[in-house]
C-alpha cells in the first residue's frame, strides 16, 4: 500500500477530535446531573421533613415526643407522645412479618430447589402479582372481607383491628421476600449444589444447609426490604386498622400507625404553618429514620454475609 494513502488516511481520522471530546463531556455531564437528581430527591425529603420538624420541636420537647404515651395533637390539650403510633406501626408490621417471612422463605426455597422449571415460571409471576395489587384494594379486602371473616372466630374483634390489616399486609409482602430470596438462591453456583448432592444430601438438606447459607445475604436483605415495606405501608392500615392512637400490644385491638395518622390528617387538609401541619412531618421524620435504620442494618448484614462463593 502506498505511503501517501496511509498519510491521508491518518489525517482523516485525526480530524474530529476536539468536537467529539466536547460532545462526550457535555453528555457525560448531563447524565451526571440526572444521576444526581436522586441525591437531590433525598436532600429535598430530608430538608422538608427536618424544616417542619424543627418548627415542631421548638414547641414540643423532644423528650416528650419520644416518651409520651399519648398522641392527641389535634385536641384542646394536645399531647405529642409518638409511642402510641409507634406501637401501632410495630404491631401491624409484626403481624405482617409473622405471615410473610415464614411463608415467603418457604415459598422461595420451594421455587428455587423443588419446583420444576414450568412450575417456577408460572408460580413466581403469580406470586409477584400479590405485590402488584394496589394497596387500597388490600385495605378494602381487610376491612370488608377479612375482618368479618375473623369475627366468626373472635366475636369481640372490633371492626377496625390490627390483626386483619396485618394479615392482609403479610400476604402483600410475601413476594418481596419470596422473589428476592429466590433470586439469591438461584444465584448460588451449581457447583455448590452439586457438591452437596454428590455427598448424598436430599434436596431439603441441600436447600437448607448449603443453598440457604450461601444466599443468606440476599435473603436477609429481602427480610429487611419486607420489614421496611411493612413499616411504611399506609393504605391497608389507614383503611382497616383504625385511626385511634392506642398504646397497645394486642393485635386484636385497633390502633393508628404513623402512616395512618399522616393520611388521616392529610384528609383534613391542614393548612400550612400550624402545629398540626408540622406534626405529620415530625411523624414522617420518625418513619424515615426507622426505614433508614433498617437500611443501615441491611447494609451491614449484606457486608458481613456477603455472598462469597
Amino acid at each position: 500500500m502506498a505511503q501517501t494513502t496511509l498519510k491521508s488516511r491518518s489525517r482523516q481520522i485525526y480530524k474530529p477530535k476536539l468536537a467529539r471530546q466536547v460532545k462526550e463531556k457535555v453528555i457525560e455531564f448531563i447524565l451526571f446531573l440526572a444521576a444526581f437528581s436522586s441525591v437531590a430527591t433525598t436532600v429535598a425529603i430530608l430538608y422538608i421533613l427536618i424544616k417542619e420538624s424543627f418548627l415542631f420541636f421548638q414547641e414540643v420537647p423532644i423528650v416528650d415526643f419520644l416518651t409520651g404515651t399519648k398522641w392527641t395533637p389535634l385536641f384542646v390539650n394536645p399531647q405529642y407522645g409518638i409511642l402510641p403510633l409507634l406501637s401501632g406501626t410495630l404491631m401491624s408490621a409484626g403481624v405482617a412479618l409473622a405471615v410473610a417471612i415464614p411463608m415467603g422463605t418457604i415459598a422461595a426455597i420451594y421455587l428455587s430447589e423443588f419446583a420444576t422449571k414450568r412450575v417456577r415460571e408460572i408460580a413466581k409471576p403469580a406470586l409477584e402479582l400479590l405485590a402488584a395489587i394496589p394497596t387500597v384494594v388490600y385495605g378494602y379486602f381487610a376491612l370488608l372481607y377479612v375482618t368479618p371473616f375473623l369475627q366468626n372466630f373472635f366475636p369481640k374483634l372490633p371492626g377496625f383491628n390490627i390483626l386483619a390489616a396485618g394479615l392482609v399486609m403479610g400476604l402483600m409482602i410475601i413476594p418481596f421476600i419470596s422473589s428476592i430470596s429466590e433470586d439469591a438462591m438461584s444465584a448460588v453456583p451449581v457447583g455448590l449444589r452439586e457438591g452437596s448432592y454428590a455427598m448424598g444430601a436430599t434436596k431439603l438438606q441441600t436447600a437448607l444447609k448449603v443453598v440457604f447459607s450461601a444466599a443468606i445475604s440476599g435473603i436477609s436483605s429481602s427480610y429487611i426490604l419486607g420489614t421496611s415495606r411493612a413499616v411504611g405501608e399506609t393504605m391497608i392500615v389507614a383503611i382497616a386498622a383504625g385511626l385511634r392512637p392506642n398504646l397497645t400490644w394486642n393485635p386484636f385491638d385497633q390502633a393508628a400507625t404513623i402512616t395512618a395518622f399522616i393520611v388521616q390528617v392529610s384528609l383534613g387538609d391542614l393548612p400550612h404553618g400550624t402545629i398540626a401541619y408540622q406534626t405529620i412531618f415530625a411523624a414522617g421524620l420518625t418513619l424515615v429514620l426507622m426505614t433508614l435504620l433498617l437500611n443501615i442494618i441491611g447494609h451491614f448484614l449484606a457486608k458481613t454475609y456477603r455472598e462469597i462463593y
Partner: protein
Amino acid sequence: MPTTNLRKLRTNLNRRKLINSGFAFLGATIIAIAIIILLGLTLKMAFQGAERITPEFFTSFPSRRASRAGILSAWVGTCLVMLVTAMAAIPLGVASGIYLEEYAKKNWLADLIEINVTNLAGVPSIIYGLLALGLFVYELRLGQSILSAGLTLALLILPVVIVTTRESIRAIPNSLREASYALGASKWQTIWDHILPYSFGSILTGVIIGLSRAIGETAPIITIGALTFIAFLPKSPFKSEFPFLSFEWLQAPFTVMPIQMFNWVSRPQAAFEINAAAAGTVLIGMTLGINAIAIFLRYQLRKDIKW
C-alpha cells in the same frame, strides 16, 4: 459394603426422604394458599362489583347516587397522571442508570449516588407525599394538580427505573461493548448505538412495572390533597388554534382511580360498596393488564435475544 451398614444407610435415607417430601408438599401448599387467597378475595370483589361494571360506569362522573356514579374523571385522571409520571421518570431514570453503569468511576460520589438510590427505594410512599406537599404544593406552588401528582409518583418510581435500567445494561455482555470500542466508537456512540437499543426492551419492561406500581398509589396523592368530588375532566391537551397543544390540564384539579375507590370504600351505604368493588376490579384489571404487557414483553425479549 457390609449389608448391616447398608441397611442402616437405607433407614436413615428413608427418613430423610420423608422429611424432604413433607417439605415439598408444604412449599407447594403455601404458594397455592397465597395465590388462592388472592384469587378468592379478588373474585369475591369482582362478583360484588360485577353488576356495576357497565359502559356507563366508565363514562359517568361520580355521583351521590351510587347507581349513577362512575369513574370517568378517575380513569382519565389516572391516565394523565401516569403520562406526567412516565415523561418525568423515564428520561431521568434511564439517564441515571446509564451514568451509574457506564460512566461513574469508583469514587465516593458514585458510592453516594448508589447507596442513595437503594435507600430511596426503601422510603415509604407516604413520605413522597409529604415531600410533594411541602415542596410541590407549598414551595413551588404547583397546587394540588395533575402536575404535582405526576411528579410525585415519578420520584417514587425513579429508583425502580434506575435499577432496572442498570440491570438491563449490565446484562449486555461486555464482549459487545469491546467490539464497539475496538471499531473506534466513542463511549456515547457505544451507548447510543448498542447499549440502549439492546437493553431497550428490558428497560421498557421495568418502566412498565414501575408504572403499574404508581397506578395504584394512593397515600402520596391523598397527602397532596386530592380527595374531592370531581365531576369534570381537565382541559384537553389539544386545541384547535396554534400551537395545538395546551398544558393547562397540568394545573387542573383531578382524581385518580385508587382515590375514587378509597372514597367509595369509606362511604357506609352498601350501594357504594358495590361501586368500590367495581372500581377495585377495574383498578386490578388495569394493573394486571399493565403487568401482562410487561410479562409479554419480557417473554418476547427472552425469545429474541440470545447473546
